[in-house]
C-alpha cells in the first residue's frame, strides 16, 4: 500500500474543515447583525438564510458545499491508487496539485469570486483528478 498519497487527501480534509469554520465564523455574526433568529423555528438549514445575507458570506457556504462534491471522487481515487500501489510519482504530484488548486479555488470563491477565474481553477483541478482516475484504471485493469 502506498501511504504517501494519503497525505494530500488528509490536507484536503483539514482544509474543508477550515472552510467550515470560516463559513460558520462569518455566517453566524452576519445572521445576528441582520436580526435573524436562528433558533426561532425548527428545520432551517444553512443555505436557507443565504439570500438574506451579504453575498460574501454566502460564498463561504457555497465553497464548503462545493468541497463536499467532487473531492469525494478525489478521496475514492486516492484510496484506489494507494491500494493498487500506484500512489507515487506522477499520481502523487497530481494529488498535491489537486489539493493546492482546490485551496486556491476556495480562497478565490470565498473572497473575489470572479466566475471565469473560478471556472479555470476548477477546470485545472478537474484535469488533475481526471488523469489520476485514468491512471487508476490502468493500475487496476492490468
Amino acid at each position, binding site marked *: 500500500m502506498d501511504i504517501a498519497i494519503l497525505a494530500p487527501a488528509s490536507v484536503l480534509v483539514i482544509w474543508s474543515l477550515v472552510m467550515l469554520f470560516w463559513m460558520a465564523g462569518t455566517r453566524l455574526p452576519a445572521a445576528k447583525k441582520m436580526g435573524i433568529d436562528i433558533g426561532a423555528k425548527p428545520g432551517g438549514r444553512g443555505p436557507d438564510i443565504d439570500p438574506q445575507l451579504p453575498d460574501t458570506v454566502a460564498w463561504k457556504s457555497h465553497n464548503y458545499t462545493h468541497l463536499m462534491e467532487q473531492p469525494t471522487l478525489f478521496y475514492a481515487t486516492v484510496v*484506489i491508487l494507494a*491500494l493498487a500501489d500506484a500512489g507515487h510519482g506522477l499520481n502523487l504530484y497530481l494529488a498535491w496539485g489537486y489539493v493546492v488548486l482546490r485551496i486556491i479555488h476556495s480562497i478565490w470563491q470565498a473572497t473575489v469570486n470572479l466566475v*471565469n477565474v473560478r471556472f479555470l481553477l476548477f477546470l485545472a483541478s478537474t484535469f488533475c483528478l481526471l488523469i489520476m482516475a485514468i491512471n487508476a484504471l490502468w493500475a487496476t485493469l492490468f
Partner: protein
Amino acid sequence: MDTSLLLQPMVALILWTMLIWLWMYVTRIPAMNKAKIDTANLVGGTGGNLDELLPPEVQWKAHNYNHLLAEPTLFYAICVVLILAGQDYGLNLTIAWAYVGLRVLHSLVQVTVNRVMYRFMLFALSSLCIIALAIHAAIAVFH
C-alpha cells in the same frame, strides 16, 4: 496486497462521473453564450443559479453530475470496507458492477428523457445494491 478486482467498478464509476462532468460543460457553455450571460464580469453565484436561466435539459446534466456525487460516496466507502475486510470477490463484485451499470443507465435517463418514474426505478434498484453490499460489509466486520 494483490490489486483487488473490486477497485475496477469504483474506477469505472469515477470515470463515468468525469464523463458526465464533461457532458455538463459541453452543453452548458454554449447554452450560457446563447442566454447572453456576461461571463467576463460574472461574480458569485453557483451552478445551481443556472436552473432559472438555462433550458432544463441543459441543467439535467448538472443535476446528474451532482447526483453522482451524492449516494456513490457510500458506494466507494463500502467498496473500501469490503476490500480491507477481504470480501471483495464473487457476489459482492457482481453487485458492485450491477450498481455501476444501473447508475450509468440512471445517468442516461436523467440527462436525456428524464422521465421521473424510470429514473426512480433505476435509482431504487441501484440503492438495493448499496443495501446488499452494506449488509455484507456489516456481516464481515461485526461477525
